[in-house]
């Protein structure tokens, strides 16, 4: 007890000191104090207690001090939203400061503070700043619209910022145009709001030449989303952006390549123009390989895609991809990949000599890849196979363990491509059996023995030695061994009878692996039933393996080519597989949303992890109150709230208002767990099945003990605010769900916050997973201004049900209608 005071006092001491300094009269002292506060913040100390004092320093002429105070605010405003309001006045004033730097600073900072109350105040200043006379302010305002959209997309759309942003595209200052384009591209990502048309494209192309490198990237990325109407347009754009290929900045070059690759698809194949263009693409990509190593890496991953899509681009440029000794390992591996892709007859001898040198390098992974590359070259370029095999044999002679193993694996593939051509080396291979300890190498060797059993005199001895240690082997090896022995038996039945029986019993009786057992049984039955048929099956002619085994499938390739330069092109995975779709605003257009969230992730992608530390969501119509968003990506196909019925005059101010509520919290009172204990398994339908059941078998009482909430008919969760008056055009609704005698009731309090009486209420639920729908109309008299009324609506659960996505999300929407009298 007494010792803890030392902690508090010391803390108070430091903070107390800073407090006094912050409130001192001398400007110098203030500045020093603020710097100290920022320094403490930087090292991670919590100085949020000084919030009011720091805010007091906000009103200053000193730009440096102001910037520091703003920095502090950005950091702590979220944790102290009420105090942050104190700063709003100064912000708004600063947005009209004579100094453009201050105006821009204020707008920028306000946009970064994601506190709703401050955001409301942002709209007017932002509007003014978008039309500011100083381009610096305008460009900041353009980005600010994107920020605002991220916080509150509806606000941006309703307040007409998108149109203003569009206007900025015609601005005279190229930086403003670039930022506006960047903002539009981002807004379009979640909801296509602005269509880029030919006029815009022309403006963008004009601005392109005058922008900074970053602006050029924004513009080019936006152009990548544009679909030209015809060939001529496409050709025109190509010509105007080709000069960008010579830019020093790698991002500009890659973005240009992206646009060109896309446009080339629209031009007629084999035209002169295309050949010219493709010739132009090669030198800049080669230049990229002299950039910093990280950038080389990104470039190489992209070149991999480009070469797969348009091999003619870099056909002649093999030398550039030769590995340098001081390249980092990731660059070396990628270069090796490209070398193999570019290998053809005319450069294969060069390639092979390089590969042979690489195989003598120090880095194990690199050496293995080099050896594997030799094999792939042999398979790809037939004329080189002889040389490759010779090289591989030499490498085996080196007796370096991992080299030998890799070589064996690769030779197996060569045999599969060129059967009956290189059997003379088998004896060399057999000499090295002992060094093979990796499963893949062992399996490959066994395959070779089995396949060429008739040419290997001591095949049975070799296989027998493997069979000795059958159970210690890896599954892959066991399977291969089984097949090989059966092949051997079929080729030389006389002296291998015992061996095959042994193997079959090992596989079927002593093994746990179902694949192995099944295969064993198949062979056993085949052999006992009809050896002739067995021969036909097991020793059948096999198709030759194809040349390139790891090409990306065409649709994926096309998708990735549209994302050159981005992370998708580096990962070689589509963007949807690694972006968390929950971050997308819930009001995404249905087609886009469902496409994005329902695109099946590839098998290697990480699962969508429930983020337990989700940034609290913003206050908008579809309030995700249960932000313990344990459910799968929520891109629900919510219906938009219907617009006010046109043609109604003011008297009949009826309108439909979409309001959502999170029924989970209120339903918690009816015996449901909120949140659901197991997000994976949706018991929701079952739970509500109990409601439709009119019998007194009240579901609540039968809830298994895991249910946290204590259930009784009497408990009703307190009413929550479902509809705010400002959004409800004067009607405020607080409500909760209750259950009485087996029926669900929506109990609400309507409060009239406008000057006219309200009457004739009606409600409609959107179809939801639970089939929840009101049983009857709302029976309530007109509500006078500033009066409240209790309203009760009974609901049933056998209405039309439609799966909402996600199923377990307990949110649904209602539409409210009422009349002003």
């Amino acid at each position, binding site marked *: 007890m007494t010792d803890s005071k030392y902690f508090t006092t010391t803390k108070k001491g430091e903070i107390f000191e800073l407090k006094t300094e912050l409130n001192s009269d001398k400007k110098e002292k203030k500045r020093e104090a603020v*710097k100290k506060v*920022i*320094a403490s913040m*930087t090292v*991670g100390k919590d100085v949020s207690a000084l919030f009011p004092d720091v805010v007091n320093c906000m009103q200053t002429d000193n730009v*440096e001090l102001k*910037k520091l105070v703003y*920095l502090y605010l*950005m*950091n702590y405003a979220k944790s102290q939203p009420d105090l942050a309001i104190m700063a709003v006045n100064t912000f708004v004033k600063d947005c009209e400061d004579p100094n453009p730097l201050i105006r821009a600073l204020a707008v*920028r900072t306000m*946009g*970064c503070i*994601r506190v709703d109350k401050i955001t409301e105040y942002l709209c007017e200043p932002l509007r003014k700043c978008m039309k500011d006379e100083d381009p610096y302010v305008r460009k900041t305002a353009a*980005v*600010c619209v*994107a*920020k605002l959209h991220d916080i509150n997309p509806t606000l941006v759309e309703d307040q007409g910022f998108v149109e203003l942003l569009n206007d900025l595209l015609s601005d005279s200052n190229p930086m403003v145009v670039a*930022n506006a384009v*960047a903002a539009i591209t*981002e807004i379009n990502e979640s909801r296509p709001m602005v269509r880029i048309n030919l006029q815009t494209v022309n403006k963008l192309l004009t601005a392109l030449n005058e922008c*900074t*490198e*970053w602006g050029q*990237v*924004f513009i080019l*990325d936006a152009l990548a989303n544009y679909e030209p109407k015809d060939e001529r347009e496409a050709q025109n754009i190509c010509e105007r952006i080709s000069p960008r290929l010579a830019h020093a*900045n*790698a*991002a500009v070059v*890659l*973005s240009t390549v992206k646009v060109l690759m896309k446009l080339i698809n629209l031009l007629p194949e084999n035209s002169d123009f295309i050949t010219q263009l493709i010739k132009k693409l090669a030198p800049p990509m080669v230049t990229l390989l002299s950039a*910093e*190593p*990280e*950038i080389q*890496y*990104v470039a190489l991953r992209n070149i991999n895609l480009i070469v797969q899509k348009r091999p003619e681009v870099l056909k002649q440029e093999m030398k550039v991809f030769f590995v340098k000794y001081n390249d*980092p*390992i*990731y660059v070396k591996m990628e270069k090796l990949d490209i070398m193999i892709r570019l290998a053809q007859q005319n450069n294969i001898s060069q390639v092979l000599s390089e590969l042979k040198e690489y195989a003598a390098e120090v*880095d*194990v*992974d690199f050496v293995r890849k080099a050896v594997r590359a030799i094999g792939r070259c042999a398979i790809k370029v037939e004329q080189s196979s002889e040389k490759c095999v010779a090289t591989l044999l030499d490498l085996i002679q080196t007796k370096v363990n991992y080299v030998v193993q890799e070589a064996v694996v690769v030779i197996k593939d060569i045999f599969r491509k060129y059967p009956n051509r290189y059997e003379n080396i088998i004896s060399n291979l057999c000499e090295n059996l002992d060094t093979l300890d990796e499963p893949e190498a062992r399996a490959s060797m066994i395959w070779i023995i089995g396949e060429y059993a008739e040419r290997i005199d001591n095949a049975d001895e070799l296989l027998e030695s493997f069979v000795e240690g059958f159970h210690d082997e890896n599954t892959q090896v066991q399977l291969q061994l089984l097949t090989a022995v059966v092949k051997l038996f079929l080729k030389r039945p006389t002296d291998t009878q015992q061996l095959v029986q042994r193997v079959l019993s090992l596989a079927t009786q002593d093994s746990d692996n179902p694949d192995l057992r099944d295969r064993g049984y198949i062979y056993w039955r085949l052999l006992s039933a009809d050896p002739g048929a067995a021969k036909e099956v097991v020793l059948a002619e096999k198709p030759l393996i194809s040349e390139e085994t790891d090409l990306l499938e065409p649709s994926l390739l096309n998708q990735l080519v549209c*994302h050159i*330069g*981005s*992370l*998708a092109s*580096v*990962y070689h995975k589509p*963007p949807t597989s*690694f*972006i*968390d779709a929950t*971050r997308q605003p819930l009001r995404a257009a249905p087609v886009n949303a469902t496409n994005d969230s329902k695109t099946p992730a590839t098998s290697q992608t*990480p699962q*969508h992890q429930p983020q337990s*530390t989700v*940034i609290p969501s913003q206050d908008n119509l579809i309030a995700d109150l249960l932000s313990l968003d344990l459910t799968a990506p929520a891109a629900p196909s919510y219906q938009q709230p219907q617009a006010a019925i046109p043609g109604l005059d003011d008297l009949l101010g009826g309108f439909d208002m979409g309001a959502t509520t999170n029924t989970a919290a209120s339903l918690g009172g009816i015996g449901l767990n909120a949140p659901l204990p197991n997000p994976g398994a949706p018991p929701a339908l079952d739970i509500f099945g109990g409601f439709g059941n009119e019998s007194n078998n009240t579901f609540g009482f039968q809830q298994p003990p895991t249910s946290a909430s204590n259930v009784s008919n009497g408990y009703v969760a307190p009413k929550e605010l479902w509809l705010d008056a400002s959004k409800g055009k004067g009607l405020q609704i607080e409500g909760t769900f209750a259950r009485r005698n087996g029926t669900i009731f929506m109990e609400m309090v309507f409060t009239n916050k406008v000057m006219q009486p309200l009457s004739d209420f009606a409600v409609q639920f959107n179809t939801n997973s639970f089939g929840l729908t009101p049983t009857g109309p709302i029976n309530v008299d007109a509500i006078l201004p500033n009066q409240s009324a209790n309203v009760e609506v009974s609901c049933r659960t056998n209405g039309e049900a439609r799966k909402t996505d996600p199923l377990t999300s307990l949110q649904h929407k209602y539409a409210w209608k009422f009349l002003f009298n």
Partner: protein
Amino acid sequence: MSCSAIFILDLKGNVIMSRNYRGDVELTQIEKFMPLLVEKEDEGRVSPILQNGNTSYIYIKHMNIFLVSLSKKNANAALILSFLYKCVEVFSSYFKDLEEESVRDNFVVIYELLDEMMDFGYPQTTEPKILQE
């Protein structure tokens, strides 16, 4: 297209400074960066772009600091890497040696520069001459 936050770390992975641009990535994610890097080094599969779940770490190393950018979207990797290199260039023009000590000594200037050079994850002005206004 954009990055969510930029961090300057020392060689052990401790954060020296950070700047959060978009507010959509938790600042604790950066703590996973160093273990991930070490793991990749052990496996021999280092790359300048690391991925952990939905978060991508794009980084460069300069002297004894790492400049790491975090992103949760399909960021333009080439853009971010060239931006990070540009940052190094700009910082070096302000205080000759850019390393751990000089970062701590000049944190105020660095905050201001990071503010000017990038907004909401979009690179803005990075020319040293213009920045020295």
